[in-house]
């Protein structure tokens, strides 16, 4: 008996398109933006949009990985401020607000990433080993990690930073801000890693059906732990980029980002239920959010009404991605 290979090609195409349901939204935004302000389509402005989204995009990347693996991490936003702040305090002298340990300045980025990873380890420990609810563990960690920044800094902004931590967020490489390159490379790695490597595919298996993944020989706990650690590290890197862009570490760095991060990931097609979505989709989500913010700023929409416009655009993007995607969301 032969198999009924009913038109396999259209299906491939459709599946590919599903990552790109936001592309029409992006196109509409580009057209609308160009219409509203001639500056909008200039290279300078678009570069700004990308630079402004670079650090939050790393958070979206991290969250997308964690969501695809079927978990949840709210604490990422606190890591964005805390990891660089503590790393800097380990390095700068006490007179500048540091701990006065006198560690060498170039260590600051490795220290920062290490702190991010350590937060991931702790999250993983509670969620995987202790089997606690990921939502609440990371909610508590969101509060705790932010407190671990507020406590030592006493809520002060750190102004005197080692040059090394400022470099990545402010340097220009080949005419574009380094932050854009870094985000681009990491997203490319994410797309390839999740599309073409066994480890990456195992995230989908785990998020889709953890028992089945375990039965298929995937070391579920180990992979999940790795994802949390990677997530924390990416958040710390986002903190480094943000620090360089702003030139100081305020006590509110990263605070309130996590909602936007989820919005970007989900309108980009990543499911909150795990196992579904792609990194490319998440990237389109980031772009939509960045373009909307840019247009609202360019138009100078009143601060009071900005949230309404903004929220409505998220809803519209969601509806478009629902219609284009064809499936109920969850």
């Amino acid at each position, binding site marked *: 008996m032969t198999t009924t290979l009913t038109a396999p090609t259209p299906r491939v195409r459709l599946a590919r398109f599903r990552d790109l349901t936001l592309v029409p939204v992006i196109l509409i935004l580009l057209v609308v933006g160009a219409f509203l*302000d001639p500056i909008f389509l200039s290279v*300078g*402005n678009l570069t700004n949009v990308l630079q402004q989204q670079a650090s939050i995009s790393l958070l979206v990347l991290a969250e997308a990985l964690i969501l695809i693996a079927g978990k949840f991490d709210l604490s990422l936003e606190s890591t964005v401020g805390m990891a660089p702040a503590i790393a800097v305090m380990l390095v700068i002298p006490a007179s500048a607000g540091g701990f006065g340990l006198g560690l060498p300045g170039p260590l600051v980025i490795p220290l920062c990433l290490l702190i991010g990873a350590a937060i991931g380890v702790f999250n993983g420990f509670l969620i995987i080993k202790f089997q606690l609810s990921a939502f609440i563990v990371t909610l508590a960690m969101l509060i705790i990690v932010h407190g671990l920044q507020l406590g030592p800094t*006493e*809520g002060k902004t750190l102004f005197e930073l080692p040059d090394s931590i400022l470099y990545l967020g402010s340097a220009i490489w080949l005419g574009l801000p380094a932050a854009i390159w870094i985000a681009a490379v990491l997203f490319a790695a994410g797309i390839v890693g999740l599309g073409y490597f066994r480890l990456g595919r195992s995230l989908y298996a785990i998020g889709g059906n953890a028992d089945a993944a375990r039965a298929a020989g995937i070391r579920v706990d180990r992979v999940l732990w790795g994802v949390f650690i990677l997530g924390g590290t990416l958040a710390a890197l986002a903190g480094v980029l943000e620090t360089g862009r702003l030139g100081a570490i305020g*006590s509110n760095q990263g605070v309130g980002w996590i909602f936007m991060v989820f919005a970007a990931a989900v309108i980009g097609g990543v499911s909150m239920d795990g196992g579904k979505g792609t990194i490319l989709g998440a990237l389109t989500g980031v772009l939509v959010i960045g373009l909307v913010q840019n247009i609202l*700023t360019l138009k100078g929409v009143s*601060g009071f009404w900005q949230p309404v416009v903004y929220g409505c655009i998220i809803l519209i993007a969601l509806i478009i991605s629902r219609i284009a995607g064809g499936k109920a969301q969850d």
Partner: protein
Amino acid sequence: GSGGQTEAGGGGGKVGIDHPRADSDFWNSYIKYVPQMAGELKVDLMPATNSQNDVTKLVNNVQALTGQGAKAIVMAPQDTGAIATTLQTLANKKIPVVTVDTRPDKGQVYMVVRADNRAYGTKACEFLGEKLGGKGKVVQLMGSLSSINGRDRAEAFRECMKTKFPGITVFEEPTEWEGSKAASMLQTRLEQNPDIKGIYMHAGGVHLAPTLQVLKQKGLLVPPTDAKHVFVVSNDGIPQEFEAIRKGDIDATVSQPADLYAKYALFYAKAAIDGKTFKPGPTDHDSTIIQLPNGLEDQLPAPLVTKDNVDDKNLWGNQVK
């Protein structure tokens, strides 16, 4: 008033104090001054509570403080309307209240200790207006519009520009006191209007570094003598702003007196417990007491700091550390 009652000895006049937030440089300086000033003024201070910018917490904290026996309360309600019921309750209990920084719209207060936030906006506007010669474009990096101080600064700046410098275009950016938003909005605005010549930031603590970073990236961080210079007026008076003024990165800041806030908050709280009363009119510390419908307000001086007076020892920003 019945001025000279006996100075309270050890008779128990505990002062409860609630701090509004722990995440801004200005308030942190204030928080640091409090115990120091309490020592100087010999105020019996209870452990401070912190309402983390949440009026619900403030109400809960005040309840706890009075429960623990506070005879006077010092608070800095960032949401001045929602505190009305609490003030009423305290008035019923005959517990005097000193509010710092903000003026409650309703409910009895013993004294409001604040500088005039509208004056900040006006001072910044006048400085920028003169520097720009009455024409050009300026950006106002606004704080949160749901905070009265942010609104007062924004409105005063806007009105002053409209009346005194109609030739100047003002762009308003709702940054919500967030450095990240400030940087993005300023960057976008400068892209759109490269001829912007002035910036007023509502809070040096969060806006200073991002603004400088954006200006640097655009190559606009040049001395005032350079034609490309963008005039920047900040607000708060933290040491880093003074540093930036000395370097010529920014041009002025309005020094919001954190030390005087702490000092006179405690001063009036103690005075209230001691049964002293005050009348509208000038005071012995360069300020004026004015009458409000629901109490009195001591309007402390908030000097504009420029290159000329940045090294003044009396500025609180020069006293920290």
